[in-house]
């Protein structure tokens, strides 16, 4: 059950520091949402309401923000979020084959999460790594110059 969503003491301290950095409190919205996403795993409605209260802004505004940005998730995602770039330079380098190889290996489609919760597969737009295409981002890390074989080896290492 969802208990009252609340930052840990450490996150609360961090929240204070973040807000203190900005000339206006509302400017801290994205970093505070990151903080919440990190702490709660994803931005549930409860988490959004909590952030809205902390930030003194209407909850609808936070909701609009969360749904606007691709890196903010309102649903739980896998431990490793595989994001394969599908935009032209990567497509020219065979990004579709990379996605197909991952689909085959993990048995999930784009937008799906493996049953064990280990991986979520997404296709994303240009990640500014076109010179080393095809590429993917897994959580914070870039993996570049991929081929069907190397992508399998990378996934094997991600527990």
């Amino acid at each position, binding site marked *: 059950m969802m208990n009252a969503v609340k930052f840990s003491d450490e996150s609360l301290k961090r929240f204070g520091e973040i807000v203190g950095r900005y000339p206006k409190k509302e400017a801290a919205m994205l970093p505070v949402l990151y903080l919440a996403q990190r702490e709660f795993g994803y931005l549930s409605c409860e988490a959004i309401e909590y952030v809205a209260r902390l930030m003194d802004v209407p*909850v609808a505004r936070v909701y*609009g923000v969360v749904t*606007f940005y691709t890196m903010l998730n309102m649903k739980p995602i896998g431990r490793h979020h595989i994001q394969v770039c599908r935009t032209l330079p990567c497509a020219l380098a065979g990004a579709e084959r990379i996605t197909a190889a991952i689909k085959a290996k993990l048995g999930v489609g784009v937008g799906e999460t493996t049953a064990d919760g280990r991986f979520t597969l997404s296709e994303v737009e240009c990640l500014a790594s076109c010179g080393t295409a095809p590429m993917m981002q897994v959580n914070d890390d870039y993996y570049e110059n991929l081929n069907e074989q190397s992508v399998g080896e990378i996934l094997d290492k991600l527990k």
Partner: protein
Amino acid sequence: MHGYEFHVPGSGLNPKLETRNCDTHMDPVKIIIDGREVATTKGKTVIQAAAGVGIAIPHYCYHPKLTIAGNCRMCLVEIEKMPKLQIACNTPVMEGMAVKTQSPKVLEARRAVMEFLLINHPLDCPICDQAGECWLQDYYMQHDLTGSRFDEKKEHDRKREIFGPYVVFDGERCIKCTRCVRFLQEVTHTDELTVVNRGDHSTIALFPEKILDNPLSVNVVDICPVGALTDRDFRFKVRVWYLKKTPSICPGCSTGCNISVETYQNRIARFKPRINEEVNSHWLCDEGRYCFHSLTEGERLTAPMIRQEGGLVPTDWETAVQAVIAGLGAAAPVAGVLSGRNTNEEAFLFARLMKKISAAGEVFYRERELTEVEKLLKSPDRSPNFRGACDMGAGGGGFDALAGRLIEGEFRSVYIVGEDLVDLPGDGDKIKNALEKLSFLVVQDIRLTPTAKLAHVVLPSTHFGEKEGSYTNRRGRVQKLNPAVVPPLGALHDWEIFSRLLAKTGEKISFANPAEIFAALARAIPAYSEFNYDKLGDHGIQLDTQRHDH
């Protein structure tokens, strides 16, 4: 078309507009629109300058009382020396600026915007309540009139989502102009709605589990230029082109919001706000908007009634009037209670009647606590014409003091006009006991209310929507009520009943209509001496320069 939105300049309760316009001056600026020289002032935008001379530049997202969003792109115009078309809503006028609103380039851009707005639209006009007052329809008829070139699968959105007690949303009809979002951010500051997602998945939404129920919520329906937000109360009742529209004044409270009473087959279908910057700007509160239901619906009295053994039985007016005068005359002391919804004209005659029969008259007045949002529009006083009635001499202290005396048993007979005292929260039971002990009770109302059921004589009257007359709001603005529907046969207007009663007391009285009463009251009451119905017009006039509240 839609030019009504430009009526009067001003801020309309939106503080963001005040700051935006704070550096505007009255410096004159001349610009040229479609070859015509237009005199305007610095700080105005092209769309405002054009509207000022009756040139309506098509638009959706622009609303004079909201901040500029610039998102619909319908108001694109050609401006000399500018390579791209510019949106008229956000282009400040500059001396000598030459604007074209009808050039081929402008018409093509407008047609293109129409086409974009319609590609994911369900084109369900036959079942849409907005049909007939939809800006998509109107502009389409003016500009496009061609078939769709969109041959793809339409994006679907939420249909019939209940946003709140009065508002329902159809996402597929929405053009994302964000008027509703801005209204809730900038006017009510309640922020219920936002735009979620992006691209063509953008849609207007409430936060999950929240509802749109602020006291001004239905204004989002009024400002929605399309059929995305509709009024649940009005939905599917009647096609708007069948509506007869009568300018009038909201009877919901003493703010005196200007309204259009919209009727179909002699029934009130809805209230819509009329723009009056001195009173309600563009807005109307939900309570006022729907007050006509309780004030007008239910089985009407169509004949006077008189109490005989076994109960109230129908009688004729002559008998009833005679019985009232005789009954009140025989059971002094008498108290008269006038409704705060009665007009000045009625109050004027009521005051004379009370004086004539030496009765203690009082007008109905009850105050309430208001929330911050309610304070934007609502008056604490629910009685729309308490101030006017007091001016007419119908009372002065409000009903509460009189109620105390009534409960104490000070009066032997009571004449109640248009108020169901037995139904009052709190004091209802005590008053009922007091009324039951009276020697003689007259109730004048439109229905056989619980109070009327206690009466010895019941006089069938008419409601605000059937009347002509005037209200004076709490700030002293005298405004005109107009009859929107015809009263049932057998009922008489309160002024007619008071006239008959006065005549029966021997008072020489012969008013043909409320205008004549108003002329009489203007002669009698100095504050009103300058006024007549013509002068009141559709927006009323202020009584005195010093605005003072009660």
